[in-house]
């Protein structure tokens, strides 16, 4: 087990390094720079600015010094907002995005699994069709449409919840709902499909033959086996939800980190682009690692380390 974890950690570092390298050179190959926007600056000022941010140095030297600062976990200053460090920006935005994301995940996973299980138990019945209709709607309606709809209905027409911003738990309800419908629908469909398959397995019949109640059969025997495919998508889903979403955060005026992803690119704000990418990649890689560990817990046949057992 330990050797497996060490191996995986090494692979994770290598992956991260590859991502950093690729992003760095791709980013610099983009036309434009942080300074040539609509406002023209004199050549001398331009030169000074570039010198200040070391942009006049050869690319490889810049790459080397970026790696060096990464090792000390320093993402550098933002070029666009010269008063801020990238670390500060992430430090302020991420906790908010993370809180929103965590609740969203919780809502999406529990309601998705319940919806999927209920649908599978009433296969081809009215409840099944109803649940799957909700799921299809959830998948096809983009979350910004869902968000505006929710605001219009539950904040403007019937002012139950606040329209936007992020301060109390009431403020959290609408963005969580808007963000959760998509993932919930995906999880519901996956759970249903995999439950339907598991329910026809011989060991379910064995469990019935033991005289167990339907509830025990579903919870103890079926669900655990049915959740494996769901766990697979959970890693990527969690990474993208936890790091914030540009659109939802924009609509609800939530000061999360979603906006940095998009703004930094149009601004050619090199340190911010690198910072957000590295941050997102790290979270994604860690999530995928956790998912792999989860497999081993959910299904004892999956051995995470080769030379054990037989």
């Amino acid at each position, binding site marked *: 087990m330990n050797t497996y974890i060490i191996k995986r950690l090494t692979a994770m570092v290598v992956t991260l390094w590859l991502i950093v390298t690729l992003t760095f050179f791709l980013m610099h190959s983009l036309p434009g720079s942080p300074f040539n926007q609509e406002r023209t600056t004199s050549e001398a000022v331009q030169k000074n600015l570039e010198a200040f941010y070391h942009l006049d140095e050869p690319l490889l030297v810049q790459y080397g010094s970026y790696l060096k600062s990464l090792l000390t976990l320093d993402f550098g200053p933002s070029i666009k907002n010269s008063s801020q460090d990238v670390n500060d920006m992430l430090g302020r935005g991420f906790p908010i995005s993370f809180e929103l994301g965590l609740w969203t995940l919780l809502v999406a996973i529990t309601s998705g699994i319940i919806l999927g299980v209920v649908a599978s138990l009433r296969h081809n019945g009215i409840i099944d069709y109803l649940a799957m209709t909700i799921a299809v709607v959830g998948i096809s309606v983009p979350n910004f449409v869902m968000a505006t709809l929710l605001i219009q209905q539950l904040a403007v027409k019937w002012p139950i919840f606040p329209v936007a911003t992020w301060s109390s738990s009431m403020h959290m309800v609408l963005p969580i709902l808007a963000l959760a419908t998509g993932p919930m629908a995906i999880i519901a469909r996956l759970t249903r499909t995999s439950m339907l398959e598991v329910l026809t397995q011989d060991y379910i019949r064995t469990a*019935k033959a033991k*005289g*167990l109640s339907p509830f025990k059969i579903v919870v103890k025997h079926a669900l655990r086996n049915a959740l494996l495919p769901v766990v697979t998508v959970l890693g990527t889903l969690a990474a993208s939800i936890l790091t914030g979403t540009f659109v939802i955060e924009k609509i609800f005026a939530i000061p999360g980190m979603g906006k940095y992803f998009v703004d930094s690119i149009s601004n050619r704000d090199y340190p911010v682009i690198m910072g957000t990418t590295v941050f997102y990649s790290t979270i994604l890689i860690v999530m995928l690692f956790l998912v792999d560990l989860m497999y081993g817990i959910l299904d004892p*046949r999956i051995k995470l380390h080769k030379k054990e057992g*037989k």
Partner: protein
Amino acid sequence: MKKVLEVKDLYVSFTTYGGEVKAVRGVSFALNKGETLAIVGESGCGKSVTSQSIMGLIPTPPGKITGGEILFKGRDLTKLKEPELRKIRGADISMIFQDPMTALNPTMTVDEQIIEGIIQHEKLSRLEAKQKTIDILHLVGIPGPESRLKQYPHQFSGGMRQRIVIAMALVCEPEVLIADEPTTALDVTIQAQILELFKAIQEKTGVSIILITHDLGVVAQVADRIAVMYAGKIVEAGNRRDIFYKPQHPYTKGLLNSVPRLDREEAELISIAGSPPDLFSPPIGCPFAARCDYAMEVCDRVYPFKTIMNREHHVDCWLQDERAKRLLAVK
């Protein structure tokens, strides 16, 4: 001898897109205390459906018991509600399935799978249930069960897994054990061991066994009585001696003839020509008539009456009729 279980004129159908499949059509038999009754027949003859109906495990829909009674301890199981059936399943009547590779839950430890059955039916603490699990694993011949309790099914061989499945079925000391092709998925040496185990357990516990199989070799080793099923009906039944040495139905004879034998010169494997009838619309006459070498006109038109050969041996065949015997004599 005391009757433990009695099936009377059982009918089971399945509704499919193609129509209604009449899988079991008027099956009757009784199971006595401590005996082994073998139900034999080829694939699709309704033997598994019969056994699953007794357990109330027919998937409904599409399956449905459309007629008859299953009497157990004076109660008709076909009339019981699901919660009452659940109390009987695993406690009074248990079942062993064909494929031990898939019959166990791959994500649960072996002890948990046995203990949950005990706790469902008996008022025992976890510790007592665990001791009972160890005892039953001893009984079915798992070496050193204490050390293997926390293992998962994939860490056992096929034969060992079938022993665990048997342990699971026997742990609540049922009166009836239904074994649906219990040795089909195992290799021959393991088969013999499992059959020995059945005999040993029966001697110790006095459990009555219904053995569903298509393997006459298995039947010859363990069965006291044999019922031969064809196209949803029991066409001949009797004790082992009568069925093996004095078979009356041409289908039974055909089955016995198709067992490969090492003591004969001919190398050719004998089979019964043709295939069983379509159960969407079963023939009104004898279902075997189309494949039968002795078929007469009456066979196609009217289902034969039951002829009683002796107290246990009976057969549904027109050849038993006096007139048929004259006809054969002329031929």
